């Protein structure tokens, strides 16, 4: 007598097929809700919440939210921002550009990667998701920002105020800053 009857096997196969179909449906529905760009839908996840660092050309570190590997081998970085308005700031572009520099110059023995000169800021606004494509800074711009920050920390340069005076209103450092609120 067979240990497992053909009916049981058929039922198990059916259950597995139903499970994978359900997963696929859920995945598609999630992708629709996400409004994910087509190139990312077809891409493979390269890393998620992953710590990265480099020593060259300048010592930098960070933690990427997500990075995807496209079919052509390029890595595209995605950073999530939860905001009350759908907007991308210069600080987001700098952050993504730093990640790009780190991934491209990862220390040995990790292989160097070709990272796309653009990235996506995933803006979550009241549960609604939008992917905003942004062009990233060149490596030398990131390096000069690093040098500027080092000089600012060493008090060799005077720090600039924000160009947007309205930002001072909600600033957490307002009481220590000389600039009056706009």
């Amino acid at each position, binding site marked *: 007598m067979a240990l497992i009857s053909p009916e049981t096997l058929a039922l198990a196969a059916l259950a597995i097929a139903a499970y994978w179909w359900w997963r696929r449906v859920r995945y598609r529905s999630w992708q629709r809700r996400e409004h994910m760009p087509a190139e990312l839908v077809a891409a493979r*996840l390269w890393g998620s919440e992953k710590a990265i660092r480099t020593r060259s050309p300048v010592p930098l*570190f960070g933690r990427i939210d997500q990075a995807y590997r496209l079919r052509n081998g390029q890595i595209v970085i995605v950073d999530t921002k939860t905001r009350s308005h759908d907007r991308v700031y210069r600080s987001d572009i700098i952050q993504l550009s730093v990640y790009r520099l780190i991934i491209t110059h990862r220390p040995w*023995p990790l292989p160097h990667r070709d990272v796309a000169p653009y990235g996506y800021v995933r803006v979550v606004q009241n549960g609604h998701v939008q992917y905003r494509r942004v062009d990233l800074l060149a490596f030398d711009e990131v390096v000069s*920002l690093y040098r500027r920050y080092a000089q600012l920390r060493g008090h060799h340069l005077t720090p600039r*105020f*924000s160009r947007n005076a309205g930002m001072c209103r909600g600033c957490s450092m307002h009481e*220590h800053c000389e600039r009056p609120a706009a």
Partner: protein
Amino acid sequence: MDESRRPISATELAELGACERRALLKLEHPEKVSWGRRMARRRGDREHLRHHHRVVRYSRPCFIATAVYGDADAPSVATLRGFRDQVLLRSRVGTALVWLYYCWSPALARRLVKHPRLCRVLQFFLDALVRWL
């Protein structure tokens, strides 16, 4: 440490894009965060974690790659992947083991992300396995 060679985080450098003065003041003074902002940050952290879990669950990456090594292209992961494809998937028992692995790995990966120490322990054993392979 030489100030010009100090490791700087991406978030710290990004602050320069908003306001250089605030970036420096944050180093000297403890930040006073309002209740509303604290709640907003908490919401942001929750969204990050939720999205991470979803991405890991749906993309079916190797849990070793995402959680333990933090890199799908790490040499150890490539060795383990080769073992899966060239040894395990050639037998029925091996195929069943791989299937079981993919059933359980997303849940395990979600837990491992929260426990870096456990990741390090697991990495020690996996490294030994990779050396043996």
